[in-house]
């Protein structure tokens, strides 16, 4: 029981990170109907910007404490947002009005460009950082096993929820959010009402990239490593989360993220254990489990868990 609880906590913390990235996929899909395959690499860029910022701050002698983490987070969000904006500007906007696959192909190209750019500029080896956030809180102790939440996990959950709360407020209660929703529901009509839809799309990419930067920073702090290829696997999992939650649904993105995080964590924790059929499973197949979900969702539940099923009158 204690073991299960511990795994649940681990799964939720990981799922939050997937959720943050999934929101970026789902937002872009909602507004321009394309899967931004470079989004995972934007997450990777976010992690690298944070890594570089931490290194710079620590050579300056003040890399510790919540102030430094917050500062790094903000720097990473700002610079990564600039990357997100540029990607849209360079690779997607010129193709608007082109055939439907064109921006998708361009996105894959952009993903390769970002990976190679980081590989060349930062090197191909994984870059470690010193642990910044240490310590843990013990929740329960007994039978030779204890349940604890690391400070890092608390930070992940708190930061994610805070960022998503601000984001939700932005989308539901501000003029900008209303313009974004209008573009998502009928872009041409938004233009007829004087909305600069290109600008709204740019802002969507900026926000999505900033959220991915938060995810990248948290991931870096949690696992202590960044490499140029990290965005691929994490990106595909976040994409799976977005599909599972229902592409286009913002709450669905977080729900899907949590489920993928939990499934992955529980698979690693229980596969191969000496119980029932579990001993037949291999814990190394946790990614297979995540992607099996992607395939199953696409076949049996294409609109996802919280996807749209509303009937609209014409």
């Amino acid at each position, binding site marked *: 029981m204690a073991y299960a609880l511990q795994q649940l906590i681990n799964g939720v913390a990981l799922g939050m990170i997937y959720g943050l990235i999934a929101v970026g996929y789902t937002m872009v899909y909602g507004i321009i109907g394309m899967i931004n395959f470079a989004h995972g690499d934007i997450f990777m860029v976010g992690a690298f910007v944070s890594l570089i910022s931490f290194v710079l701050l620590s050579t300056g002698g003040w890399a510790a404490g919540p102030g430094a983490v917050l500062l790094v987070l903000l720097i990473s969000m700002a610079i990564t947002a600039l990357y997100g904006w540029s990607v849209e500007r360079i690779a997607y906007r010129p193709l608007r009005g082109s055939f439907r696959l064109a921006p998708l192909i361009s996105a894959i190209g952009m993903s390769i460009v970002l990976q190679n750019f980081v590989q060349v500029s930062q090197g191909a080896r994984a870059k470690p950082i010193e642990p910044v956030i240490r310590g843990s809180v013990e929740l329960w102790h007994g039978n030779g096993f204890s349940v604890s939440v690391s400070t890092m996990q608390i930070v992940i959950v708190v930061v994610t929820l805070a960022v998503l709360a601000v984001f939700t407020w932005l989308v539901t209660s501000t*003029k900008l959010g209303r313009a974004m929703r*209008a573009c998502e529901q009928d872009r*041409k009509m938004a*233009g007829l*009402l*004087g*909305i*600069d839809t290109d600008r709204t799309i740019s802002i969507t990419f900026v926000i999505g990239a900033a959220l991915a930067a938060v995810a990248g920073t948290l991931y870096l702090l949690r696992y202590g490593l960044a490499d140029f290829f990290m965005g691929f696997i994490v990106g595909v999992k976040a994409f799976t989360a977005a599909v599972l939650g229902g592409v286009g649904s913002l709450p669905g993105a977080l729900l899907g993220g949590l489920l993928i995080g939990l499934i992955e964590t529980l698979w690693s924790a229980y596969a191969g254990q000496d119980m029932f059929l579990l001993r037949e499973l291999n814990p190394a197949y946790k990614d297979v489990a995540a992607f099996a979900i992607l395939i199953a969702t696409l076949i049996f539940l294409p609109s996802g868990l919280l996807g749209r099923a*509303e009937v609209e*009158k014409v």
Partner: protein
Amino acid sequence: MSAMLQLDNVTSAYGAVEALRGVSVEVNKGEIVTLIGANGAGKSTLLMTIFGSPRARAGRVLFEGRDITAMPLHEIARAGIAQAPEGRRIFPRMSVRENLLMGAQAFGVDPGPGLEQAFTLFPRLKERETQRGGTLSGGEQQMLAIGRALMSRPRLLLLDEPSLGLAPLVVRGIFSAIRTLNEQTGLTVLLVEQNANQALRLAHRAYVLVTGRITLEGTGAELLARPEIRDAYLGTH
């Protein structure tokens, strides 16, 4: 005095299909002008070409003396033209109130008077204020589309077949609202309609569009009296 809106020999096309072939139309300040024609004559294309979507391939579109032919869609809207487009295009997952607010927000105008006007003109919208746009009836959606277009306080209102698919009583209500707007606020209206009978009664002037060309023009009363119009668009009375 030059016209408020002037289409000068405009040609427009979707891909290879020419929808407008050298169309010239004028709308003067304070007028209701209607454009009647059969399905596929190019009526909606004409309204969308004013907004540059599709862009005119030849000819010019002038609004209040400014050449708007090549302007981006949203800037044409900001110049003071609003449209209740074909199919109404209500934002289905926004409330009635939010739909209306969308009409004002790009213009930096206070939405208060616009909301009041929409709710006075169409009290039904007030009753449905918090309901989602996608759940409204066709008539309510048309009222909302007009109310939303008025939120930006436009000087020219383009209406694309507001009567389409609506019950006669609802159509009468909407047409009388258009007349009220024109008489009380001096709003200039360009109305596209298949319902020629009512449109011609409402309009000061009218044009007949046949496969992308203007074939007739005159006052509403003149066109109503012409036998070829009666045969082609009004049925036999």
